[in-house]
């Protein structure tokens, strides 16, 4: 199947009102699974983190992971939701080999959290309020690999292989209410919303929040209707759009595709669709099942969850600052230009810069280290700058030594190299590598005299007012002292000599 006919985007927005709804699945980073003690680890050998419970063997009984419930409550609170005083798990029945039990343990009519809201700020500062319908607990499904056929896709597959390591990993599904009024900015808002959710769960450390690993996944519901029509249009649900760019592109594509169909007298089929990022289109999946077809019923093997007010408040007290508010606060406190600040945010270095500032470095100096020298070193070592083996405290210490004149910039870079090479704290590296600014002017003056002797005309030129002539001597002195002196001090001493 290829791309379908599309209406130009501007035209679609002119003719139709866009309504979106987003379902975001967040995989929690608990140590063990939702209902059993198998490890919740990505990337292990297939079917090595499985047990009778998560592969649904007869007679096995699930037990709820307390930490997963705590994380779910925390997510609900961070989204401004009410936490249900009592809630049950339900069985969502379907036959598909991604879960061996033939049902998914989920929540249906009694989700743990509901009725929240979150403000989403777009790049230009425009803010949209997105209402949260609910957030509920459930388990992830196993991973299928389709074998045979040309592309490994399901069409033409001869058989499928199933790895249940992911089956039973705790998930929180966050569902928005329909979002109206975003108009042409709906695709952008969808991506910004997913970004905000990702940022929140990451700041709370309840999920690794890595989209490329599927820790955060989005299903995007899109419908359109002629302006003035009160009834919602038929929606499509584009599944598992797994990058922010995909979310934006998939929503935009669906708006254009549906607009073309409606404008030509057609009707939209309610269905799930799959997004193909490589070629930028969605294709029809299965017709959307009615909720009735899942024959939800209360899970008899699990007792209700009834979080006490005390427990909820205890969890609320552990919530970190909202990432959006934190950014506002830091930007004001640090006084960075917008581009400088965005550079820090986009490089995901807020934590590092904040910790470096807290350890005593000036904000600009902290920023320059992390987005400059350290980012460069990380890049050349092909690791994430956050994974470099240097701490904010060590960076702050090095900066402090520069500020006090004990290290030159060049020596500071040597110290950083030493810390990264595992030679210990900055002080230890300085000791080991003999990196001390020579503060004994005797040795320095001797070096200057020697350099001046080789270039006798320099002093004369300086006296004639050609101060820049000192440069040649400074270079020679720095070389002789192997960089372990402050160039400004050398210059000062040369100018004194010329008096």
């Amino acid at each position, binding site marked *: 199947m290829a791309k379908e006919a599309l209406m130009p985007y501007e035209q679609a927005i002119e003719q139709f009102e866009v309504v979106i709804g987003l379902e975001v699945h967040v995989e929690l980073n608990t140590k063990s699974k939702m209902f059993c003690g198998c490890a919740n680890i990505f990337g292990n*050998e297939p079917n090595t*983190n499985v047990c009778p419970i998560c592969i649904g063997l007869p007679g096995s009984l699930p*037990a709820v992971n307390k930490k997963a419930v705590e994380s779910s409550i925390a997510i609900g609170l961070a989204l401004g939701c009410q936490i249900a005083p009592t809630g*049950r798990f339900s069985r969502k029945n379907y*036959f598909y*080999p991604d879960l061996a039990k033939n049902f998914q343990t989920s929540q249906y009519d009694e989700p743990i959290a509901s009725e929240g809201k979150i403000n989403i700020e777009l790049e230009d500062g425009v803010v949209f309020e997105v209402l949260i319908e609910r957030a509920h607990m459930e388990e992830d499904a196993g991973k299928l690999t389709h074998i045979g056929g040309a592309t490994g896709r399901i069409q033409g597959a*001869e058989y499928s292989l199933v790895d249940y390591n992911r089956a039973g990993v705790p998930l929180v599904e966050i569902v928005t209410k329909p979002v109206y009024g975003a108009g042409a900015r709906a695709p952008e808002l969808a991506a910004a919303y997913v970004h905000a959710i990702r940022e929140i769960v990451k700041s709370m450390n309840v999920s690794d929040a890595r989209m490329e690993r599927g820790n955060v996944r989005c299903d995007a519901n899109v419908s359109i209707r002629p302006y003035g029509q009160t009834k919602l249009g038929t929606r499509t649900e584009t599944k598992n759009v797994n990058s922010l760019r995909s979310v934006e592109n998939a929503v935009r594509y669906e708006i254009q595709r549906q607009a073309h169909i409606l404008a030509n007298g057609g009707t939209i089929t309610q269905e799930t669709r799959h997004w193909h990022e490589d070629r930028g289109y969605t294709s029809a999946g299965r017709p959307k099942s009615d909720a009735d077809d899942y024959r939800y019923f209360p899970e008899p093997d699990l007792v209700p969850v*009834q979080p006490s007010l005390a427990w909820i408040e205890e969890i609320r007290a552990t919530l970190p600052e909202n990432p959006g508010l934190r950014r506002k606060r830091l930007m004001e406190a640090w006084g960075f230009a917008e581009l400088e600040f965005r550079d820090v945010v986009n490089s995901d270095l807020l934590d590092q810069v904040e910790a470096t500032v807290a350890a005593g470095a000036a904000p600009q100096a902290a920023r320059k280290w992390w987005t400059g020298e350290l980012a460069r070193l990380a890049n050349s070592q092909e690791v994430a700058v956050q994974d470099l083996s240097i701490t904010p405290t060590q960076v702050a210490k090095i900066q402090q030594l520069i500020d006090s004149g004990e290290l030159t910039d060049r020596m500071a870079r040597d110290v950083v190299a030493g810390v990264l090479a595992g030679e210990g704290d900055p002080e230890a590296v300085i000791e080991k590598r003999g990196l001390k600014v020579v503060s004994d002017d005797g040795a320095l003056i001797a070096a200057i005299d020697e350099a001046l002797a080789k270039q006798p005309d320099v002093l004369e030129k300086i006296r004639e007012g050609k101060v820049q002539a000192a440069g040649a001597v400074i270079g020679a002195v720095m070389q002789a002292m192997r960089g372990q002196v402050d160039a400004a001090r050398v210059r000062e001493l040369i100018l004194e000599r010329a008096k």
Partner: protein
Amino acid sequence: MSEITPDLVRHLASLSRILVTDEEVATLAGELNVIVDSIAIVTQAVKGDVLATSHPIPMANVFREDVVEPSLTQESALSAAPDSAEGRFRVAAILDEE
């Protein structure tokens, strides 16, 4: 009288992956109608003050701590599978979902 039609029975059967003959459909439609009607009568007797009986024993918050326990080995996990390959369960290709 409730609305259990032969088509609805066929739909339920297909959701449950149960093969049914036309004769069975007719029988089941009749039986399911009786069940649904009976539940409808019971529902009339239930007022708002009657609690759901899905969990009749007053017990809540039974949790396990977030501790990793030993899993099966791959070999034993796959030992009862009808078919397996590459350390994974092998199943027929299913075409209605990705």
